[in-house]
C-alpha cells in the first residue's frame, strides 16, 4: 500500500525554488492553471521511499503571505483552506542562503499556520565563497523544525529532504510568533470572539482580500467589531507585524548565522559596473537583443520550412488515404492546415523563450528592468514591460501573460493593450511575401532594401507600441503611487534543466491556449469557404465549363477555375465582396478582403487564402508570388503595386487580427472592455494609416 502525501513548495522569487521542484520531480510534472484564473499551477510527483509517494505543488513565488498579486493570493488561499484537495500535509519553504533573513519572514508566517514546515536553505554551495557559516543545530532549535542545506547545482540535500518529508508527522507545529505582541487589545478581543481559532489565521482572513471557503469568511464578517477597523489601521498593524517578525528573526540569526565579508568575492559589483553602466549598459542590451533576434531568425528558418512542407504533404497524403467526402476534405484542408498554422510558430517561440529564460536565470533581466524603467515610465509603461514587449515578437499571447509581475495596474494594463503592436511571428509570412513582391531586391550602400524594410517594420511595431502607450497614459488617471520594487538577484550560470523546462512549458501553453482557438477558427473558415448559398455555388462546374467552352484547358486548370469560382460564391466570398467597397480606398479588392477576414484566425492564413483564391495548385511560395504579381485590377493595372503592398503591410502591422490574443486579454483584464477597445482602436488606426499610405503612393 502506497502512502500519498501532499507537499507544497513555497519560497521567495529567485531562491531556486523551481530548481528544487525540477530536482524532485524531473519530467513528472504538469503545468495547468488554477481554476478560473490564469495563474500557472505546477504540479509533479516524486517517490520519497518505498512506501511513500509525494504530490508536489510548486506554488507561485511570494515574499510574504500578505498577498499583493493574484499569484500570491493563490498561496494564501491554498494554505488557509484545509478542504482544498491540494492542501499540503507538509510545507517546504525554500530559501536562498544569501538572503536568509528576508526569506525567513515567509517561513515564520507559514510555520504559524500550524502546518508541518521544513526549511530548505538552497544554494549552499555558495557559502564558502560568500564567507557564510550556519550553525544548523541552533537554527533547528530556534525555528523548531528541520533545516536542510541544499544545492541543486551540486545535487546535495535532495535525499535528505525526501527522508524528512517521509517523517513529516514528527515535525513540530507550534507557532513561532505571538500576534498579541503586535497590538494586545485588538488581538485579545479577536481571540475572545473566536476562542478555538488560530490567531494568525484569523488575522490573515481579516487582512487578505482572497476567496476563502465561505465558512471562514462568514465567521469574521459576522463580527462587526473587526470590520470597523479602518484599512489604514489594519495596514499599520501589518507593518508592525512585519517589524516584530524581523526582530525575532534577527535574534535567531545572530546566534546561528555568520557572514565573514572578507572571504566574500564579489562578482556582482564587477558585472554590475559594466552591465548597468549609463552608456555601456544600453549598448550591451541592444547588442544582446539584436543577436537574439538574428539567432531566432537564422535558427528557426530551417525547422519552419520543414514543418511547412511536412504539413502540406500530410494534407495530400490524408486526402489519398481516407475515403473521399466532406469529412476528408475538412480534415485535410481545415484541420491539418490549421494544425500546421500552429506548429509552424513553435520553433520561433521556443528559441525566443530559451533566450528570455537564460536572461532571467542569469539575473540579467532585472538589470534590464532597472535600466529601462525610467525611459519606459514616461510612456506609462514600467521597466518590467521589457519582457512582454520582447516576448511579443514571438506571439502576443505569452507576452500578455508575462505582464503579470507588473505591480502597478495602470502600467500593466497599458502594457497589455500595446503589446499586440509588436511584430509577432504570424505577421512574418505576410511581410515576407509582400516585401518580395513590391520592394526591389537591390542594395543601397551594401544594405539590402528588402531586409531593411523588414527591420523597419519591426521598429515600427515597437514605435507604435510606445506611442500608443503614451497616448493611453495621458487618458488614464490613477490615484496610486507608482510602486515598483525589483529584486536584483545574484548573477548565476543558467541551469540547463530550468531553461529546457521553461521552453517546454511556454510552448506547451501556446499550443493549448492559442492552438485550440486557431484550430477551431480554421475549421469554421473551412466551412464558410466550402459552402455557399444559391445556384452559383452548387453548379460551379457547369458554369465554368460553359464559360470556357470555347477554350481547351487541362484538367487541373479546369479544377482550379472551379475551386476559385466556388470560393467566390461561398459564404466567405460573399463576405469578402460585402467588405470590398470599404477596403477599395485602401487599394484592395474583394479577394484581399477574403484574406483579411480569414486572417482573424491567424494572420499568416493570408498567404494560404490568397493561394486558394488565385487557384494556385500548391502552397508553393514562388508560384503564389508569381500569381500575385500577375493579378490585375479592372483598369488593367497591377493589383500588387507598391502602393497596395505597402498599404497592406502597414494594415497588418497595426490591425488587431488575432482572436486568440483578444481571448487572453479578456481573461487577464477580466473584462470585455479592453479587448473591445483594442480591436476597434487598432483596426481603425490600421485602416487610416493604410488609407493614407495608399492614397499618397498610388
Amino acid at each position, binding site marked *: 500500500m502506497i502512502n500519498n502525501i501532499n507537499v507544497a513548495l513555497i519560497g521567495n522569487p529567485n531562491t531556486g525554488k523551481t530548481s528544487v521542484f525540477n530536482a524532485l520531480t524531473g519530467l513528472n510534472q504538469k503545468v495547468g492553471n488554477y481554476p478560473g484564473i490564469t495563474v500557472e499551477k505546477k504540479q509533479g510527483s516524486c517517490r520519497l521511499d518505498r512506501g511513500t509517494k509525494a504530490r508536489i505543488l510548486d506554488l507561485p513565488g511570494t*515574499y*510574504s503571505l500578505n498577498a*499583493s498579486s493574484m499569484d500570491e493570493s493563490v498561496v494564501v488561499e491554498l494554505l488557509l483552506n484545509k478542504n482544498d484537495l491540494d492542501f499540503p500535509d507538509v510545507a517546504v519553504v525554500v530559501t536562498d542562503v544569501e538572503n536568509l533573513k528576508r526569506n525567513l519572514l515567509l517561513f515564520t508566517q507559514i510555520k504559524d499556520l500550524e502546518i508541518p514546515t521544513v526549511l530548505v536553505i538552497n544554494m549552499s554551495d555558495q557559502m564558502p565563497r560568500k564567507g557564510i557559516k550556519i550553525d544548523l543545530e541552533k537554527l533547528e532549535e530556534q525555528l523548531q523544525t528541520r533545516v536542510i542545506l541544499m544545492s541543486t547545482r551540486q545535487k546535495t540535500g535532495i535525499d535528505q529532504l525526501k527522508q524528512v518529508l517521509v517523517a513529516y508527522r514528527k515535525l513540530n507545529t507550534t507557532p513561532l510568533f505571538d500576534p498579541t505582541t503586535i497590538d494586545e487589545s485588538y488581538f485579545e478581543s479577536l481571540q475572545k470572539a473566536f476562542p478555538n481559532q488560530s490567531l494568525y489565521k484569523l488575522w490573515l482572513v481579516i487582512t487578505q482580500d482572497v476567496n476563502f471557503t465561505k465558512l471562514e469568511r462568514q465567521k469574521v464578517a459576522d463580527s462587526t467589531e473587526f470590520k470597523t477597523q479602518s484599512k489604514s489601521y489594519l495596514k499599520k498593524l501589518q507593518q508592525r507585524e*512585519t517589524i516584530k517578525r524581523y526582530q525575532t528573526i534577527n535574534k535567531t540569526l545572530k546566534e546561528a548565522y555568520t557572514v565573514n565579508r572578507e572571504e566574500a568575492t564579489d562578482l556582482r559589483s564587477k558585472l554590475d559596473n559594466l552591465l*548597468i553602466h549609463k552608456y555601456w549598459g544600453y549598448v550591451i542590451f541592444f547588442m544582446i537583443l539584436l543577436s537574439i533576434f538574428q539567432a531566432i531568425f537564422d535558427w528557426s528558418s530551417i525547422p519552419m520550412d520543414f514543418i511547412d512542407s511536412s504539413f502540406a504533404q500530410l494534407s495530400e497524403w490524408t486526402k489519398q488515404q481516407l475515403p473521399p467526402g466532406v469529412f476528408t476534405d475538412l480534415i485535410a484542408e481545415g484541420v491539418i492546415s490549421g494544425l500546421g498554422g500552429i506548429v509552424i510558430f513553435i520553433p520561433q517561440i521556443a528559441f525566443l523563450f530559451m533566450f528570455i529564460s537564460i536572461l532571467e536565470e542569469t539575473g540579467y533581466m532585472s538589470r534590464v528592468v532597472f535600466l529601462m524603467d*525610467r525611459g519606459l515610465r514616461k510612456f506609462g509603461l514600467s521597466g518590467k514591460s521589457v519582457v512582454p514587449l520582447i516576448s511579443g515578437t514571438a506571439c502576443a499571447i505569452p507576452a500578455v501573460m508575462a505582464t503579470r509581475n507588473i505591480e502597478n495596474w495602470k502600467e500593466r494594463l497599458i502594457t497589455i493593450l500595446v503589446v499586440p503592436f509588436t511584430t509577432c511571428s504570424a505577421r512574418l509570412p505576410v511581410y515576407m511575401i509582400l516585401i518580395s513582391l513590391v520592394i526591389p531586391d537591390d542594395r543601397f550602400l551594401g544594405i539590402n532594401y528588402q531586409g531593411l524594410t523588414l527591420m523597419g517594420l519591426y521598429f515600427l511595431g515597437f514605435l507604435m507600441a510606445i506611442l500608443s502607450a503614451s497616448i493611453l497614459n495621458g487618458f488614464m488617471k490613477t490615484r496610486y*503611487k507608482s*510602486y515598483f*520594487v525589483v529584486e536584483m538577484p545574484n548573477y548565476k550560470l543558467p541551469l540547463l534543466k530550468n531553461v529546457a523546462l521553461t521552453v517546454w512549458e511556454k510552448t506547451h501553453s501556446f499550443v493549448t491556449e492559442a492552438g485550440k482557438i486557431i484550430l477551431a477558427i480554421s475549421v469554421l473558415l473551412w466551412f464558410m469557404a466550402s459552402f455557399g448559398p444559391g445556384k452559383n455555388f452548387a453548379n460551379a462546374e457547369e458554369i465554368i465549363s460553359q464559360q470556357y467552352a470555347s477554350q481547351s484547358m487541362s484538367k487541373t486548370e479546369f479544377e482550379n477555375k472551379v475551386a476559385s469560382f466556388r470560393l467566390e460564391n461561398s459564404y466567405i466570398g460573399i463576405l469578402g465582396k460585402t467588405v470590398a467597397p470599404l477596403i477599395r480606398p485602401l487599394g484592395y479588392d474583394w479577394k484581399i478582403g477574403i484574406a483579411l477576414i480569414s486572417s482573424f484566425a491567424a494572420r499568416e492564413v493570408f498567404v494560404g487564402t490568397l493561394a486558394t483564391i488565385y487557384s494556385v495548385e500548391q502552397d508553393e511560395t514562388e508560384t503564389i508570388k508569381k500569381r500575385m504579381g500577375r493579378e490585375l485590377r479592372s483598369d488593367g493595372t497591377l493589383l500588387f503595386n507598391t502602393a497596395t503592398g505597402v498599404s497592406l503591410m502597414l494594415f497588418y502591422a497595426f490591425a488587431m487580427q488575432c482572436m486568440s490574443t483578444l481571448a487572453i486579454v479578456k481573461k487577464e483584464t477580466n473584462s470585455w472592455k479592453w479587448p473591445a477597445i483594442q480591436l476597434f482602436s487598432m483596426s481603425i488606426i490600421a485602416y487610416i494609416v493604410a488609407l493614407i499610405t495608399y492614397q499618397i503612393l498610388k
Partner: protein
Amino acid sequence: MISLDQLAIGQKAIIESIETDVLPLKLIEMGCLPGNEVSLLYLAPFRDPLYLKVDEAHLAIRKEVARCIMVKPFGDD
C-alpha cells in the same frame, strides 16, 4: 536626516523612519525598516530608479518611493 534619494553613490546610511501610509507593505517585507542599514549602489540615468543594498538584500526602487524613506548617513567610505 535626509531622504534616501539624496544619498550619494556608495554612501551608507541607517533608515530612520518611513512614511508608513504611502509605502507598500512589500518594501517593508523586503527589509526597508527603521534601524536597518542601507547603501546606494548605482543610479540609473536621471537618478531614477535607485539600486540599493538594504540589509543584505539588493533591490531597485523608484525615486518617488525613495523620497518617503528618511535616512541618517554615516561614514564616508
